[in-house]
Every structure is written in C-alpha cells, then in structure tokens.
C-alpha cells in the first residue's frame, strides 16, 4: 500500500515539475488567447492550488480515472483495460514457462556441478542472463521469422485474414504467440536458473544430505526428499526480488514483437510524448509489481511453515 502511495506521489510531483505549461501541451495551438487558455486550464483543474490537485489526483486514481491520453484522445483507463488481457496472457504464460524452464536448468546444473551438463546449462543461463532483452527479441525475429521463416515477425493476429474459420484463427494466434513467448521465457529462465543452481549446490553440501546418502538413499530419493524443498525457499525469495524484470520483459518483448499490450503502450507513450498515458502505465506496472510481491510472500509462507503473516 505504502509503495503504491509513494509511487503515486512521485508520479504526481514529477509531472508537475515538467517544464512547460500542461494546458499548452494539450492545446498545441499558440493562437488561443489568454481567456481561452484560462477556460482550458479550469476544465482540467489546473487553476487550483497544488495540494488540491494532488488530492484530486489520488481520488481520481482510486476511482481508476487516469486522465485522458494526449494522443488517443480517450481515457487512459480504457486504453489500459483494452490492453490488459494481452499483456497478462503473454507475461503470465511466459513467467510460468520461464520459472519451470529456469528451475529445471538450475536443478540440472546444480546436481551435475562441474560436469558437462552443468557447463552447458550454466553457460547458456549466463549467456541469456547477459543479453539485453530487446536485443534477444530482435535476434530471434531475425533468426526465426526472416532467415528461417517459420514464425510471423510480430503482432498478435494476421490482418490479412478476414473472418477465418476458428481452426485457422487458433493456429495463426498460436503462431504469433510462440516466438514472443519463447523469447520472454528465455530472458528470465537464465536468471532463475542461476539462482536455483546456487541454492542446489549449497543444499548439497549440507550435513543432512550427506547423512541421507550415507543411509543409502538413492540419488532420486535424496533429491526429492531432501534437496528440492529446501532449495525452493531461497529461490522463491530471489525470484520475488527479480520480479521487477517482468516489467522490463513486457516492455522489450511487446515492443519488438509489436504485441499490443501495456508494454508496447509504454513505448508508444514515450514516442508520442503522451504523458497521461505514460503515467497510467507507470501506475499499472507499480500495482502489478506490488501484487506479484504479495503472491511471492504468500507462496513463501506456504512453502515455509515457520513464516506466518
């Protein structure tokens, strides 16, 4: 809650210290006379003192009234709402896939530490971790849509198809989803794999694992009963700390793949200098991150019965 509040406050004051008259930015017409500008200012509430504006801003945000986009000329909230499903679809699936992939890679690397499966898994994890997310997206489009043309270069649907039968529509939509989804997952799988590898290695050197081995448990049983659960804990913490990356991934992948979600909206808002829209996306991502952190906390208390909230 506090986080959202602080973010909103920063958000509000940052846009108030912007150089230039906001009314001028909306009007975009130097021919308006002083009186007309006054009317415009009053209609946006810009004539009131700053603290009243701030109160109004908080009140409006609570009502999900995020102002009107300079570029689209419609309420920001409705634009966000329209794009919300697309973003959640991509990053929801992508985050899930990346966690599964990353943890699997990390487990393999940690379990076979120092042997060849480790060097392959660790090496590729490190490599993907180091790549700028938007750059991987560009490379993947170049490789899998241009050099080997098996996927479309971007977008969510094929505009040239008019009223296709649903089977075709489904295939096309999956085709459009596949490449951004894989890209998004790989970006994060690297980071998760590195975390999981470290915690597996740490757990493997614990006394109770050595004891279990001494008692003659098979590798699989040692792993399932003693390693996995204990290694999961630090990983959840680390993954929660890395959740900020979701925003990075959403913006990069959606922008390069032209995926019509909130992330692409950030790019467009910057491109058109559409400040209300940018503000709206900022609030959206802040809330998304706070929610994600909350889920991680709940998951943590579920995994570790010692922690109770």
């Amino acid at each position, binding site marked *: 809650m506090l986080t959202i509040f602080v*973010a909103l406050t920063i958000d509000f004051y*940052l846009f108030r210290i912007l150089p230039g008259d906001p009314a001028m930015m909306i009007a975009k017409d130097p021919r308006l006379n002083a009186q007309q500008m006054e009317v415009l200012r009053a209609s946006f509430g810009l004539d009131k003192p700053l603290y009243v504006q701030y109160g109004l801003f908080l009140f409006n945000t609570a009502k999900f009234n995020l102002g009107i986009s300079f570029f689209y000329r419609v309420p920001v909230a409705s634009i966000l709402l329209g794009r919300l499903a697309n973003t959640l679809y991509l990053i929801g699936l992508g985050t899930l896939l990346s966690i599964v992939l990353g943890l699997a890679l990390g487990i393999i690397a940690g379990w076979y530490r120092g042997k060849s499966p480790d060097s392959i898994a660790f090496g590729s994890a490190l490599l993907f971790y180091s790549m700028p997310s938007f*750059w991987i997206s560009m490379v993947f489009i170049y490789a899998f849509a241009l*050099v080997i043309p098996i996927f479309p270069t971007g977008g969510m649907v094929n505009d040239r198809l008019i009223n296709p039968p649903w089977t075709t529509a489904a295939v096309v939509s999956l085709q459009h989803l596949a490449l951004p989804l894989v890209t998004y997952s790989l970006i994060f799988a690297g980071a998760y794999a590195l975390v999981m590898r470290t915690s597996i290695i740490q757990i493997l050197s614990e006394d109770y694992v050595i004891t279990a081995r001494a008692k003659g448990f098979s590798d699989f049983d040692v792993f399932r009963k003693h390693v996995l659960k204990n290694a999961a804990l630090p990983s959840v913490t680390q993954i929660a700390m890395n959740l900020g990356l979701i925003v*990075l991934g959403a913006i990069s992948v959606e*922008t390069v793949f032209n995926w019509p979600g909130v992330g692409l909206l950030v790019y467009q808002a910057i491109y058109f200098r559409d*400040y209300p829209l940018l*503000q709206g996306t900022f609030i959206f991502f802040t809330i998304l991150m706070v929610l994600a952190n909350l889920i991680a906390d709940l998951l943590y208390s579920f995994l570790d019965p010692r922690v109770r909230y």
Partner: protein
Amino acid sequence: MLSSVAVNRRLRVQKKAFVQFWNLYKRKKAGVAGVAVLLILCTLAVFPNVFSPYKPTATAGTPMSPPSLAHLLGTDDVGEDILSNLIWGTQGSLFIGFLATFVAISIGALVGLASGFYGGLKGELMMRVTDVFLVLPALPLMIILAATLKPSIWNVALIIGITAWTPTARIVRSAVISLKERIYVYRARAVGCTDRRIILTHILPDVVPLIFANAVIVTAIAIASEAFLSFLGLGDMTVISWGTMLYFAFSMGAFTSGAYWYFLPPGVLIVITILAFTGVGYGLDDVLNPRLRKA
C-alpha cells in the same frame, strides 16, 4: 608528515597486499578473462580515434551496405561505418556505466554506512526510507524519470544511479551492523574517537572491498540499463553508445529487413561487456568470501 622511509614501507605493504590479492584472484579463470576483456574495452574507450577506421559521424560509404573489406561491419542507414561507431560507442556506454555506478555506489555506501551505524530513531528512519526505495519498482521509475528530464548523458547516468543504489545500501548496511560490534570499535570509542573517525578509519576500510565487488555488478546493470533507456528513445541521441546504435537499428527495422550487421554487433558487445563484469565480480567474490573458496 610522513618520512620517506615510512612512505616506502607503506608502499611495500600495499604492494605485498596487492600481490597476495592477485595470487588468490588469478586462480579463477573467469575473473582473469574478465579483467583482460575490460582492459581491451577501456583502451578502445579511451583512444577511439586511434582504433576506428573512419570518423563515426562521417558519411563513409553507401547507406546500408553489408560488411566488406572497406567497411568490416558494413554501414548504417546514413552511411556511417558501423565498426567506427561501435568503437566510439564503447566510450559512451562505459562512460555512462561508470558514472551511473559512481552515483549509485556513493548514495548506497553513504546510506548503508549511516543507517547501519546509527541505531535508534535516526537509523530506523533511514532504514524505512531505504525499504520504501527497495520495493519501488526501479524500472518504471527510471522510465518515468528519463521521460520527464532532458535526455543528456549526465541525466541518463544520474537517473540510472539514483534507481540502482539500493542493493549497495543493503549490503553495506548489513556489513556495518556486524562490524560496529567488533572489539576494536568499542576500544576506539573508549579512547574517545568521534563517530566520524570510527566510521572513516575503523569501519570504512573493511567495507570498501565489499563496495568494490558490488560496484562491478552495478556497472554491468548500469550499462544494460543505458541500452534499455536508449532503446526506448530516452537516451542521449547526440552521444554514440551501443544503446543508441540499437535504438537506430530498431527504428530502421534492421532486424526485419535482414541488416544483421546493423543490430547484431552492439548487442554482442553489450553481452561481452556484461559477461566480463560478471566474471570479475565472480573472481572478486571468490577472494572476498573465504567460505566459497574451498567448495
């Protein structure tokens, strides 16, 4: 004043410490490779005019021509030589990276030292402020700041710096909390040292290696952040950096038109740089954390 004998002795001690450090450090190949790569990159960054075949802003050839002998990495959409741009971009990227790191490390170290050292209301208050910053989504904040401020190279570095200081603060704070309970700190207090002196002469020296190891990682993050901001069109477009090169490559659609020589090289260099910093961080970690050494 120190006599020349004392100066000599101090130099000898420092040299010995350095040799000891290097002997430990060089056992990790990743760390040594990282240092080597960074030295090469820094040389390129300091003397770009020596190494680059063309002026970075000169129209040196036909626009969008693929790699050839005259232009080893081809040319971009306005006919500038990509290799020359890359070499000059090293300067921009590393400069922003180091400057941002300096800002982040300074704030982080100060906040960490102060909030770790002072208990009570003062420390508690600082801790709360840090906590708020820790959970603030750094990336959206960075975008918002960059979109509202003028996109100059200084502002970009400053913005990255003030959104990247929290991990440093956290690391320094936890180190200081344990260090201030050491016997020598109590002794220093008993003989009447001021807080300032205790922090500067008894705590800071033990924290500096930690800060340094952290700075390496922060620099990698800062370079990646600069590239990301530039990619969104929020960087300083008058300065050549790998990020701005990628921005232009992206806006020209180099990846859908098949101009691989345009968008691949800057990204490859970013990856190499980040890997190099990671390698150095790994090597330093190995020296600084004796617990890891045996395992």
